[in-house]
């Protein structure tokens, strides 16, 4: 591994989401709130979802963690906004596969910035950081 690999891990776009997280905060109105933490490292996230009629109307998050977990949360909230719960879960599945280094078919979904996280697959110790917020989203939709 070299600094090239590190560059793949910490691409500009990830650092941008880490430094300027999108959708950070909570809602004034009542929302679906899910707490998720990574007990091995102490990262914690609180995800707020506004789900109506099986559509994720809006998503915000709070919490603390490393650059990978927070940027992933930032990207995830962007990605699922406006999607049906079914689409959001499908996206999460695709993302998990991507983290495991599997070939994924992303032709029918707009992953946008998320593709920048592909490099995480090369760092097995960091995969759980990347999937934390996604697991929270899955849990929330399951609850709904």
């Amino acid at each position, binding site marked *: *591994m*070299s*600094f090239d*690999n*590190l560059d793949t*891990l*910490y691409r*500009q776009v990830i*650092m941008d989401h880490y*430094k300027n997280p999108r959708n950070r905060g909570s809602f004034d109105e009542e929302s679906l709130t899910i707490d998720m933490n990574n007990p*091995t*490292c*102490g*990262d*914690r996230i609180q995800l707020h979802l506004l789900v109506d009629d099986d559509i994720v109307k809006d998503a915000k998050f709070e919490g*603390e*963690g*490393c*650059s*990978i977990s927070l940027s992933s949360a930032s990207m995830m909230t962007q990605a699922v906004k406006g999607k049906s719960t079914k689409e959001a879960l499908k996206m999460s599945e695709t993302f998990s596969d991507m983290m495991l280094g599997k070939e994924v078919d992303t032709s029918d979904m707009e992953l946008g910035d998320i593709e920048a996280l592909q490099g995480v697959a090369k*760092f097995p*110790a*960091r995969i759980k*950081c990347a999937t934390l917020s996604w697991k929270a989203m899955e849990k929330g939709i399951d609850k709904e």
Partner: protein
Amino acid sequence: MDIKAIRSEFPILDQQVNGKPLVYLDSSATSQKPTPVIEAVNSYYRLNNSNVHRGVHTLGTRATDQYEGAREKVRAFVHAQSTEEIIFTRGTTTAINTIAYSYGNANLSDGDEIVLTPMEHHSNIIPWQQVAKTTGATLKYIPLQSDGTITMEDVQATITSNTKIVAMTHVSNVLGTINPIKEVAKIAHDHGAIMVVDGAQAVPHMKVDVQALDCDFYAFSGHKMCAPTGIGVLYGKKALLEEMEPVEFGGEMIDFVDLYDSTWKELPWKFEGGTPIIAGAIGLGAAIDFLNTIGMDNITEHESKLVTYAMQQLATIDGIDIYGPEKRAGLITFNLVDVHPHDTATVLDAEGVAVRAGHHCAQPLMKWLQVTATARASFYLYNTTDDVDRLISALQRAKEFFGDVF
């Protein structure tokens, strides 16, 4: 101390990680294993493997002699009065759970107090939370000073006539604080309480004399002191252990078994239900021989020099927070300002430098430090000032790297 000779005994250190020579600075999590320990376990399985304390055949006798021989080595190493006071366990966690479930649940009741510190590892907090839930006892914490130490005034103020157990770590796995166990034990005893010590971070690095400390129970793990994982020790004063009930029942620990009742073996075996951790104990015995050859005082001094050097070098880095007191054991917990410790550890790993990042099984202490996680570099007998230099330059790279992207 001939570091080069010592390092040659640790085959794992001689390798490249991510294209760089490995620098292992995570011995507080688990230490590496020297050839004599690997060989002891290997030759036990190759030549002597058999169950202990049963069977009349020759292999059984050899295995029993080696297993009980290891117990005597442990006894001498921590200066217990008798091998009856040395119980083999799976590790520190199991040892503390044994005290909690056996002594704690039997001797505590509503209104009693268990006194701890906020710097405890989870394994010296949660068993006591469970005892408190079962017995109605309450937990009390001796407050920490801003440098992560405790004062004897606070110890005096926290321990009362209602206190039945004082449980404290000898050395903090995060702060490196070395606690005044002997003095605290005296105060505990003055109030009729017993003293339980988590020695996981102490026994591998310094001479420990359980009689001089006058603690009632002392727990530690083999894997942090060059021995295999899965073996640990519970030391307890004989008078207390004799009064206690086992927590695991079954083979090995019985005297007579009837259909409706049974009696237990004498100490220490009544606490060792089931086939014991024979190879692990033999490995621990070999680790003790190895450490004794080098000398515990030499190891302490070596680590002390390394940590002093590392503190000087870390001070040259701008934007680093270091936690813990001036006088510390051989570990340094830190954070680069504005870089999450996971990110720091990933960059260090790319440079071949292994450090720990996370909450170190000490969430209450993280809360007290007002951080969610930290990075930690910990030293042992095989580390060198070159390792420190590699750590420093890797940290410089991490700073450059994250400085660039921000």
